């Protein structure tokens, strides 16, 4: 039993932390995050150069990492800096390309940007209710359907798309130019897109991709959990600073016991967030991976909302202003819940495990 990070991962975290602290102060971050293309191609290239993306794939597929703990190391730092770069798409895409035995080099080097398109308007989470269809078209395939809220969609060069041929859920690749894309910014910054496929030409990567897609979702959920931990840690620093410096009625507001006790409860929840993320990261790729990822995402969703609401409340009016960095963190930690599986969806998944003996 050992909860220390390996030396390699510690260095990775420090490198990324320093890079983001230098290049992604909150003002820069907000400029990048709230204007099209909702990320910075320059900083993306630099980040790739640092080898950050290599941490997300394993050695057999050109990377230098790819385990649950590599993922959490990277995403916790992204969260701390509230980085809007489309790393989630790279992570999930790399796992899918690896599963397909496809080339990963261009992605690892940052010249190709992937977005993974699974969710649909009426099937926001999971794989069970998708309707996008694939059919043979000449040598290749044609996809028809709509993919919704595709994270990183505005800047993606290629989309990896889940689609059905008969009952079989496959993985297909669509070039950005071959589909109609409606890009947009998100309420907390960063970009997403609607993807309209109308007999769009595609290449099939994996005929029966259910397992690979679920693995990509698990990895993505763990990444989001770790991102939330990073967000929460930074919010905690901001909150403690605020409690120690803001005065009301001639005292620092941190001297009020009601706020103290609520703060202790928040800090306790952050430890729980970190713990459940560790649990899920450890299980990634194993037999318990699905359920533990769902457990983690559920706890993160609940604790994230609490963290967001309580931190804003204790900041008072300033906490709901655009000018205050904390408000952007407060948005992110809540909106993470809706990505890949929200508290209720994930809880349902955990409940299923209780019901079958």
């Amino acid at each position: 039993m050992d909860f220390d990070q390996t030396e390699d991962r510690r260095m990775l975290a420090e490198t990324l932390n320093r890079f983001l602290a230098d290049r992604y102060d909150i003002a820069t971050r907000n400029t990048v995050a709230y204007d099209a293309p909702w990320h910075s191609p320059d900083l993306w290239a630099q980040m790739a150069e640092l080898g950050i993306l290599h941490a997300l794939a394993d050695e057999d597929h050109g990377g230098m990492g790819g385990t649950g703990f590599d993922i959490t190391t990277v995403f916790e730092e992204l969260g701390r800096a509230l980085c809007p770069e489309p790393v989630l798409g790279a992570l999930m895409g790399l796992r899918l390309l690896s599963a397909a035995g496809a080339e990963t080099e261009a992605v690892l080097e940052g010249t190709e940007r992937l977005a993974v398109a699974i969710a649909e308007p009426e099937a926001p989470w999971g794989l069970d209710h998708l309707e996008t269809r694939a059919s043979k078209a000449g040598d290749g395939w044609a996809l028809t359907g709509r993919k919704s809220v595709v994270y990183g969609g505005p800047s993606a060069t290629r989309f990896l798309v889940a689609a059905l041929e008969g009952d079989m859920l496959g993985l297909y690749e669509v070039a950005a130019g071959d589909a109609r894309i409606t890009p947009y910014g998100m309420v907390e910054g960063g970009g997403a897109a609607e993807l309209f496929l109308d007999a769009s030409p595609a290449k099939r990567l994996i005929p029966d991709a259910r397992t690979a897609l679920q693995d990509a979702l698990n990895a993505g959920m763990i990444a989001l959990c770790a991102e939330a931990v990073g967000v929460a840690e930074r919010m905690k620093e901001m909150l403690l600073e605020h409690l120690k410096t803001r005065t009301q009625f001639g005292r620092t507001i941190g001297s009020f016991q009601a706020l103290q006790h609520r703060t202790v409860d928040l800090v306790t929840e952050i430890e729980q967030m970190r713990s459940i993320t560790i649990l899920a990261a450890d299980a990634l790729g194993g037999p318990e991976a699905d359920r533990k990822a769902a457990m983690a995402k559920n706890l993160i969703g609940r604790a994230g909302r609490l963290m967001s609401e309580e931190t804003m409340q204790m900041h008072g009016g300033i906490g709901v202003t655009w000018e205050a960095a904390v408000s952007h963190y407060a948005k992110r930690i809540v909106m993470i819940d809706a990505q890949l599986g929200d508290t209720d969806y994930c809880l349902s998944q955990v409940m299923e495990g209780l019901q079958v003996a």
Partner: protein
Amino acid sequence: MELQFTDEEIAFRDEVRAFLKAELPEDIAGRVRRGEELPKDDYERWHAILNARGWLATIWPKEYGGPGWSVVERHIFEEECAMASAPRIVPFGITMLGPVLQKFGSKEQCDAILPRILNGDDWWCQGYSEPGAGSDLASLRTKAVREGDHYIVNGQKTWTTLGQHADRMFCLVRTDPNVKPQAGISFLLIDMDAPGVEVRPIKLIDGVHDVNDVFFTDVKVPVENLVGEENSGWTIAKFLLTHERTNIAGTGFSNQAFDTVRALARSRRVNGRRLIDDPLFAARLAQAEIDLEAMKITNLRMLARAQKTGQPGLESSMLKIKGTVIRQELNDLARRALGPAAAPFPAEALAGNDAIAPEDHRRNAGAYFNNRKLSIYGGSNEIQRNILTKAMLEL
């Protein structure tokens, strides 16, 4: 014990409904329903419509142009307006300054100012909060120094709601720095176009601009703009803070929010079923409905007491807490109901064939975040708990 409205009250409610149906402009109601920012003109049109009917200044006595309604009639009017997606009545002139002038102002001030409020000639804003003096209002530092027949005002106000539209501000200023904080405050009326007044927008979490910073640099204010005695401003401030507020629970807004979420949950399909058939979502919504139903009765109980005793009672602090908690929960449900489709930034929420949320729901995430302010402003819920502790629990 009688929960139902009287026949007269029901007739009144029907009259209000008919009025709203006939007179509330559909374009304005649409913007309210969609949670958009309203242009100044929307408020002004709506005020004029209400004023034409004599229903604008609902809490003013008849002699000043109020309708002479009972507490219950006011409540019915406010509920119906909220349910019909009418804009709120901008409270600064009508609900705040009006009663203050009627109680503390001179005859000249009343005669000069009150008709202009009704007619929409002046848009008023409120100058209370300052950076560093949020919940602790008595620590305010904006100072007014008497020089001849003027005060010279220097300082800064913040959280000035809709101040960007305002012609005038009523304002708490420090006129005596050498006494205990509460004793040295005065209530002053300031023209927003006076030299030295600068309004800077504060953008909120969802990108909306409805509050402002206001800076004063050597602003000259005629002494006749003082309301009440010099250094008696704290009395006026307290009057306003504890002033009867029938709508503090916001039940009309919550009713409307509940109906909207329920309709969304019934129509939206998620993973093979209607969202309302997801037991976990339905459980949250049912619980919110129950809490809201209870609060509506709590609200009516307080109203009935106010009607009888003329006193709103300290329970208004409870209604403030519970009312904001319930409304924020409904905002959370509205955001949550959309799942990932809540993501698009409000300013560019998708429309037409590319829409991913129904028309009335494209600001659900933004509204959720923006409305976190509900439990902060107007006396934060923590302040309300302090008030209740002191007064009700006698602790």
